[in-house]
């Protein structure tokens, strides 16, 4: 089974600082999104069960080191990687991302299953998987916490985690599946896998390679600011009992306890 995993890289949120209410992303390294790691792991597990190939597909979205960062996907077990990097797609909206990914999937030719995280780590819109499914005319199964392929029957079977129920569904291949974090615990690649990843095939495509043009924007970001937070930042010191004393005293002073 040929599996394509769409992988977004985003600024490492733990290193994004807020200055004057703005998120400062300059000089912040990118990394592969958390849910994309779950999707990659799911693909590697499926390959182990039914055989086939795993391709990691990444739209750089302004990450100049995307071709480097995607090697983590290769170390995690993907067989090949493709990065789409084009200045016209440095800050794309979801429709533009979906159009580029759909064009790349067509160019890749063989794809039985297209995996996504249910949302990206930074903006978590969850739009790209369903948009790609619509563009390619494929069935979509979102929020999968279990994915099994019965390739001989030509179907994928998933357990999806919905708001208040678990739903087992089947769709004919090829299909789009988005995964939730509880689907697996992604393995952290060891040194051997990292070394091996260096020799795996990695291609970089531009929009021209995909035969598509720069997209017309469908969305405008008016502002993007952090709420002001004013906190006391008091760290207690001493033994557990001393800290417990000081904390409980503070809660009484604040009127939270002993009212």
């Amino acid at each position: 089974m040929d599996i394509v995993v769409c992988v977004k890289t985003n600024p490492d949120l733990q290193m994004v600082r807020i200055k004057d209410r703005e998120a400062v992303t300059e000089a912040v390294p990118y990394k592969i999104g958390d849910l994309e790691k779950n999707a990659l792991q799911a693909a590697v597990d499926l390959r182990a069960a039914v055989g086939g190939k795993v391709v990691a597909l990444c739209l750089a979205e302004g990450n100049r080191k995307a071709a480097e960062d995607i090697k983590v996907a290769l170390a995690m077990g993907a067989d090949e990687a493709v990065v789409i990097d084009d200045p016209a797609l440095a800050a794309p909206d979801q429709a533009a991302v979906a159009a580029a990914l759909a064009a790349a999937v067509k160019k890749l030719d063989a794809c039985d299953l297209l995996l996504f995280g249910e949302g990206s780590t930074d903006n978590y819109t969850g739009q790209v998987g369903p948009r790609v499914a619509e563009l390619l005319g494929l069935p979509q199964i979102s929020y999968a916490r279990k994915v099994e392929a019965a390739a001989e029957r030509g179907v994928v079977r998933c357990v999806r985690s919905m708001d208040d129920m678990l739903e087992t569904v089947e769709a004919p291949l090829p299909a789009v599946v988005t995964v939730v974090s509880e689907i697996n615990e992604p393995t952290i690649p060891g040194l051997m896998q990292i070394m091996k990843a260096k020799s795996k095939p990695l291609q970089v495509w531009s929009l021209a390679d995909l035969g598509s043009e720069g997209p017309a924007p469908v969305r405008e970001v008016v502002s993007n600011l952090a709420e002001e937070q004013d906190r006391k930042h008091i760290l207690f010191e001493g033994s557990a009992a001393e800290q417990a004393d000081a904390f409980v005293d503070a809660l009484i002073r604040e009127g939270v306890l002993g009212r």
Partner: protein
Amino acid sequence: MAALLVYSEKIDTARELVAGGKQLAAALGLGVSAVALGPGAGAAASELAAAGADTVYVSEDAAFEGWPADAVAAGLAQVADIAGATVVLVGSTRRGKETAPRLAQKLGAGCVSDVNGLIAEDGDLVAARYAFGGATTAREKVATPVKVFAVMPKTFSVEGAIAGAGTVETPTLDVKSSVRVVDRRAKEGDHVNLDAAPLIVGVGRGFNAREDLALGDELAGALGAVVGCTKSLADFEWLGEDRIIGLSGAKTAPDLYLGVGVSGQIQHTVGVAGAKLIAAVNKDKEAPIFAMADYGLVGDLYEVLPALVERLKNV
């Protein structure tokens, strides 16, 4: 008249969208239409017509059973066309959130998902949603002739909504789903309501084992607090999803949030930003939670929690 069209498979959310949509539509000079889909949707349609929608389009087509995204997106696109919709509001439940972008793609539309605030400003709609994992709030406009917004439940209130007497129409829609449902079962959960809890103890991966959460329960008991958790613990199935606090869980506003063994990653802390006081127990002095806390206890939770419980006995 062009219309603002609202849809949710959850009747409560649909009613909120009718109420909120009516005010936005008035500001934009639009009518309000609603959609009810699925076997048995007729009852919901009558309710929405009485709740203030001018026109409700209903289809009980069997293809809408269970609201599969492909069929619902196709049905909504056809209704949007019939109704002359320029704005579509979809309830951002999981089903709605996966359907709205598919619908937008069909309509060649831009879409904003997980909208938690939507206002009319200078004849256009401005949507608020979290960005950077919750660190910021982005205000976004949609630049296409038809605009799709997936709006979080409870964004609008039905309080003070004016009753109406809309008409119900039953268009024939051409829909099918290629996804087959094999089985459905209810999720287990203990239905806690963190939204209204005055004191919350938030537990995280600092607990080494499920049994150890008894320590957290004991502390919560001593404080009179409700236990919430990080997504990690719900993923392990140590606690139910109802207890998740954060971007994909509850947004809380207690008097005190005390995070125990919680690192303080933004997707979690966005759910406690509204707390009057934030406190944390963590053995790592550098843990990000301390950077946003009022009070920090630096130490091993296995020592600090028993000490706290002991001390609270004398309050």
